[in-house]
């Protein structure tokens, strides 16, 4: 295996409270040495002066559509998109077709991930059989097969008795129960946030209460069961309040926030543009502000894309009929920068924490740090690079991305997984001969 030396970069490793200029030598898939002006020999040397070198980014929430909807994305295409976005580990959601609700499905996803040989693929299993919210799925067997958490993502477990049983049962394993919080009885056939815009557009709305009630309910069940609980893609100011209280009460509750909920509001739906149809829906400016404030307060454990690719032909349907979802793992990093660093809500170390060791902690894996001996999952970022997002260049199979044409700052130059270069930006010609 080749030795790689990355010199002169600003190494930010929040887990180890490192933020300094240093060289970093990778050998045998691990971080071999790290320090100023290493005099090591290497097969390839990259000059990262002026760049950021950090632990590989982790995305807790992606939909790679395999098995079942390979025309929208495959694990191979999604993985290529992930490394182009700087992500060395992603967590695939189980709402495929068929859903991942037993161990063979978990093994299948892992195998396809290994074959793709891009990003590291984790998978969450379904909480209930066929994600129907009725009977327990084989959580234990999936856990043994390597599923790092469980969720019925796409919808929440509606029945409180079922949810209590699921959480009690899962508490015997060292795992996390994640939830897409949404009370179907309240949200019904909604396609956007319930508010002024839904009224004017004549579209059925999704009441923010639907998210908040389920989250509040689940937090009560955490108190009862003690299981680790992760609130997926929270989107409302009320949800932030509930998370804040749970954390004050020292409950094992974590949460994630998406780029779109940090940047976009329901106003974008104005012209029935289905690119903005997403679940949970885009909310109000006050909700966006509450989520950003939650980041500043440290309440947000993970930034997660909820990368949800769809065919263009499907997104060209009537707003009511089009599927939910935004694809955008490839441009997530500059969006996080725009939402969080540019307005001064957090700094690089703070933002990278929510993309590295903190999400790793949510799913209980030993990743997201680059001390000597750690696995060499590394992302190199040019923080100053200005560019325009062009969905035509995406590795993803889908183009349902509202950020096409956005001017952004910050670009991934290289992504290394276990010491191997899995993505190298054509812009970066810093290799020393």
């Amino acid at each position, binding site marked *: 295996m080749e030795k790689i030396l990355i010199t002169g970069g600003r190494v930010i490793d929040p887990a180890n409270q490192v933020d300094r200029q240093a060289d970093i030598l990778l050998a045998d898939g691990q971080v071999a040495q790290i320090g100023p002006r290493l005099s090591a020999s290497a097969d390839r040397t990259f000059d990262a002066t002026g760049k950021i070198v950090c632990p590989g980014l982790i995305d807790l929430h992606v939909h790679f559509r395999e098995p079942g909807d390979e025309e929208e994305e495959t694990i191979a295409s999604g993985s290529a998109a992930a490394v182009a976005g700087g992500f060395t580990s992603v967590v695939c959601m189980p709402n495929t077709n068929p859903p991942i609700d037993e161990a063979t499905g978990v093994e299948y996803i892992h195998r396809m991930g290994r074959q793709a040989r891009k990003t590291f693929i984790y998978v969450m299993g379904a909480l209930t059989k066929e994600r129907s919210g009725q009977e327990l799925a084989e959580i234990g067997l999936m856990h043994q097969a390597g599923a790092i958490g469980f969720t019925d993502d796409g919808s929440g477990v509606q029945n409180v008795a079922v949810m209590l049983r699921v959480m009690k049962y899962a508490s015997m394993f060292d795992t996390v129960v994640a939830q897409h919080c949404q009370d179907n009885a309240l949200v019904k056939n909604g396609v956007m946030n319930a*508010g002024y815009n839904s009224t004017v557009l004549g579209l059925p709305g999704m009441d923010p209460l639907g998210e908040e009630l389920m989250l509040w309910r689940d937090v009560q069940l955490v108190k009862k069961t003690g299981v680790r609980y992760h609130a997926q893609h929270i989107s409302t100011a009320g949800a932030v309040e509930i998370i804040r209280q749970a954390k004050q009460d020292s409950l094992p509750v974590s949460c994630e926030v998406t780029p779109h909920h940090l940047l976009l509001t329901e106003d974008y739906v104005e012209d*029935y543009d289905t690119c903005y149809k997403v679940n949970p829906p885009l909310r109000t400016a006050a909700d966006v502000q509450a989520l950003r404030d939650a980041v500043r307060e440290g309440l947000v454990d993970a930034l997660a894309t909820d990368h949800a690719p769809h065919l263009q032909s499907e997104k060209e349907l009537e707003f009511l009929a089009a599927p939910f979802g935004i694809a955008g793992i490839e441009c997530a990093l500059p969006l996080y920068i725009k939402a969080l660093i540019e307005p001064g809500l957090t700094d690089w170390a703070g933002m990278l924490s929510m993309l590295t060791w903190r999400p790793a902690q949510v799913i209980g894996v030993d990743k997201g740090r680059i001390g000597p001996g750690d696995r060499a999952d590394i992302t190199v970022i040019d923080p100053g690079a200005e560019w325009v997002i062009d969905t035509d260049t995406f590795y993803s199979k889908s183009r349902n991305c509202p950020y096409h044409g956005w001017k952004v700052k910050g670009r991934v130059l290289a992504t290394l997984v276990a010491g191997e270069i899995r993505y190298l930006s054509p812009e970066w010609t810093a290799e020393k001969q």
Partner: protein
Amino acid sequence: MKKNAFQWTRKHLIGLRDLSREELEFILDTAEGFEEISTRSIKKAPPLRGKVVVNMFFEDSTRTRNSFTLAAGRLSADVIEFTKKSSAVNKGETLVDTARNLEAMGVDIVVIRHSAGGAPALLSRSINACVVNAGDGYHEHPTQALLDVYTIRQVRGRLDGLKIGIVGDIAHSRVARSNIYAMTKLGAEVTLIGPPTLMPPRVRDLPVRVSSRLDDVLEELDVINMLRIQFERMGGNPFPSVREYSHFFALTVERMKRAKPDITVMHPGPMNRGVEIESEVADGPNSVILKQVANGLAIRMAVLFLVNQAAMQTDVKS
């Protein structure tokens, strides 16, 4: 008819929310000019001769579809009827593909009625033909609201300063939304009346007053528009029974005694007699319900005429 330098430039009519007072008045004035055609022995004029209008109706309608068909015919257009019952969820050919196919046959104006809010807006982005919204989900029903304000102007002379009540299922009513925009832009004061379970989210952000007590506001109203209770669209049970709804919100002979003697009674049809309105009131001297239907024709002629004219002007420019 006002003779000013106003120039109509919209080749689509999707909704009334974005229209200015001037534009609204221009449509009404144009419609006035077309009324005369319906009084001729040969009820035809040539402005759309050689043009093709397609009525794409994805939802049941008799009144609106017939009205558009007649209006297009009176302007000498060829009319294709395209009727397809469908839910919002598309299984076969997509809406956009269907429209592109029709366009390939040389359609100039697409009149669309669809159960999904936003379907006409989607079409207007996807094809070159003019798009006229004949009602989409509970978004807008612009020609209905235009004929409503046209009728009010005809009967009352103006809308400025009038107090207008709209009663019923506001949440699921495209008629109510288009009415609100048209009436308030023309200077009327609108009060929405109905149970809170039939009000949309953030209804108070609209330029209206909201009341859940018809009896409290009835006496001050100059015009009352009774919406149809659309059992098929509401879902759940937003009120306990028809009997209870009628008790609080129906326009009855009894209530009419407390209303202004010259109150104008409207209904967009089709009526549920005995539910939102009593027959004696619907057929009584204050009712303009059939006048609304008659005026629909002139309004739709005006709209078809104007969008076509705007399209031809943009074609010349480009």
